[in-house]
């Protein structure tokens, strides 16, 4: 099960994730992010607060990467807030550490855009 919130802060979509993101739970997040992108044309950056994310696999990463491709078309950046070592390992395995920035707070991410 995953709980999440998505809000728009300036030019960023900030998603806070809590729980397990896998094949079963990722479609809800995908729909929410896609809708938020479509409804907020000024939003171009993606900030994922993953401090309470307990699990992610390639299905969850696929949703994040898909939305990042949309963000890239708007010139946006990708941030992960407070990724713990286990989440960081999966992000590294996927190569996502090469395109994302790792920060300690949402405010730090917003400062960097």
């Amino acid at each position: 099960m995953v709980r999440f919130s998505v809000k728009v802060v300036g030019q960023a979509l900030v998603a806070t994730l809590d729980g397990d993101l896998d094949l079963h739970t990722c479609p809800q997040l995908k729909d929410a992010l896609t809708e938020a992108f479509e409804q907020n044309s000024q939003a171009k950056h993606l900030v994922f607060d993953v401090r309470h994310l307990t699990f992610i696999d390639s299905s969850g990463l696929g949703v994040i990467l898909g939305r990042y491709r949309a963000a890239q078309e708007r010139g946006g950046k990708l941030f992960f807030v407070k990724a713990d070592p286990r989440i960081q390992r999966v992000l590294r395995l996927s190569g996502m550490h090469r395109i994302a920035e790792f920060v300690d707070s949402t405010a730090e991410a917003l400062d960097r855009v």
Partner: protein
Amino acid sequence: MKNWIKLEFPGTSVNVGFARAAIAHFAAQLEITLDELEDIKVAVSEAVSNCVVHGYREKSGNVVIEASYEGQRLEIVVEDFGHGIPDIDAAQETGYTTLPEERMGLGLTFMRECMDELYLYSRVDEGTKVVMVKNIPPR
């Protein structure tokens, strides 16, 4: 001492989380670190997701998982009886996927990275079996 379990359940996405949690609980009988448990959860999640997405695409069927350990060698076998893989060599290349819109093609790569050994067997229209081994260092 050898110990084992066998699970069988419908190949639907809601069971992916159950499968990785169940196998992690079984593996926790060994002297295992949290990082090693996380590796096992990722590998099982990827294997069962592949059964659901690729094995049982447009059809339904069961997934069978057999897990066993003897000493510190843990073996996990995940099997579906679905479509099978037409080109097993191509399927093992990083980034290969038949569903590029949704999948990263990293499932088998993640399984290999998280486990010590991986063997893939498949026959078209009969199904796919993945055998994964993790050797837990003695502590």
